[in-house]
């Protein structure tokens, strides 16, 4: 199970704990919220060791997997019209520091959906709240490591995108239109790769590329799709050739993998997921700055 670290940004006056408590008093149907073509909801919330532990579920109502067996034909599940598949996502919130640890479920509820859900269900006023992924600063130390063998560099660039920042720079409408004329296809992908034997490498100064990418991409939100550079990855190998690693130069999130044994119903037990989140939280305490 993959776990990511986030920082919750919320107005100080917004009492999230009371809001979650109030949400849990609602019947299940009332907790459903429609998002990204399907329903999601806060399934469970509890307090443990000073943390708020929540379990979100995304309901897959449209389409789902089949029941497969090693020694008989594949068959469907027997489901009612109002039943589907639930994708569970565990979420931890530290009310004192606002650091959050979230399970990553590719088919489940994502962090921004959680933030949206928690503020959208608060009907009293609109709240400016979101979850910002914590960026791993150590990736930049890794890049600066001496003798790192670079095998491949991959960049996706959106050329000459017109931006509101151009407006702030007091560009005129005429030059904005000119800029649009020059901007070609939506994305250009540049891949520089060393082919052939494993010993071959690119003679590339990775720290300088990293600097350049970060300067172009700005220090905006890591999830901002409006960036000029959308992907920047370098495939590297240790000097001894032992370990190869893909470094994301743009947004290398703080993340960890924890193995969890599925229960008899093939689901990852909620308690195990919660304790994995708490363990990850304690492991990351030094990063929470």
């Amino acid at each position, binding site marked *: 199970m993959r776990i990511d670290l986030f920082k919750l940004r919320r107005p100080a006056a917004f009492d999230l704990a009371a809001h979650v408590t109030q949400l849990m008093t609602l019947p299940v149907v009332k907790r459903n919220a429609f998002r990204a073509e399907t329903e999601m909801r806060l399934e469970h919330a509890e307090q443990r060791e000073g943390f708020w532990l929540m379990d979100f579920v995304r309901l897959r109502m449209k389409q789902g997997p089949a029941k497969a067996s090693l020694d008989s034909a594949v068959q469907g599940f027997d489901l009612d019209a109002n039943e589907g598949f639930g994708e569970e996502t565990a979420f931890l919130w530290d009310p004192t520091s606002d650091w959050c640890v979230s399970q990553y479920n590719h088919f489940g509820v994502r962090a921004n959906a959680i933030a949206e859900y928690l503020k959208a269900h608060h009907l009293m006023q609109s709240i400016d709240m979101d979850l910002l992924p914590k960026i791993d600063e150590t990736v930049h130390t890794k890049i600066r490591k001496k003798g790192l063998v670079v095998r491949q560099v991959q960049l996706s660039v959106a050329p000459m995108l*017109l931006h509101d920042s151009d*407006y702030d720079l*007091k560009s*005129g*409408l*005429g030059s*904005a239109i000119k800029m*649009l*004329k020059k901007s*070609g296809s939506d994305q250009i992908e540049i891949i520089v790769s060393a082919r052939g034997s494993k010993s071959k490498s690119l003679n590339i100064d990775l720290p300088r590329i990293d600097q350049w990418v970060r300067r172009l991409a700005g220090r905006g939100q890591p999830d901002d799709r409006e960036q000029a550079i959308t992907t920047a990855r370098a495939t590297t190998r240790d000097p001894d050739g032992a370990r190869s690693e893909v470094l994301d130069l743009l947004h290398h999130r703080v993340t960890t993998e924890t193995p969890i044994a599925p229960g008899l119903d093939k689901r990852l037990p909620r308690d195990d997921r919660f304790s994995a989140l708490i363990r990850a939280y304690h492991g990351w305490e030094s990063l929470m700055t």
Partner: protein
Amino acid sequence: MSERFREIVWPYALGCIAGCVHAIWFLSSFPVDSEILAASISMGSIFCGFLATSKAVVLGMQSPRIERLRSTRFFGLFLNYLEAAIWISLLYCGFNLFGYLVHRETFPAWYGPIWSGFTVLTMATFLQITRFVMQMVHLVDMDSREANGK
């Protein structure tokens, strides 16, 4: 002086210069009869009609580049320019109608320079908007050609 400031100011500056030139060099001379007003009113109303139509044309344009423009604040800027140009054309018509009221055998001395300035301002803003609209049409054209793979 920012680019946007220049873009906003040049029609007005040109209008002021035209008014001054009229006052100084042509000694505020102006045609004696009021026929020129009728011609000016029809020009102003044609401009006004064209500008109002181009607003609808631009809002109806659909292409990735136009969508991009629309998603930024530049589109609001364009609408501001357009609105200003429409108002200027309307006021220009009004000013010419007002000319009939002040016309006695001949026009008062102040009328000529203001008329010149206003005419140049109206034409300049009209020219500016027309150029922007044509450039946007080119953007749509570029997108459709790219989509057809030519």
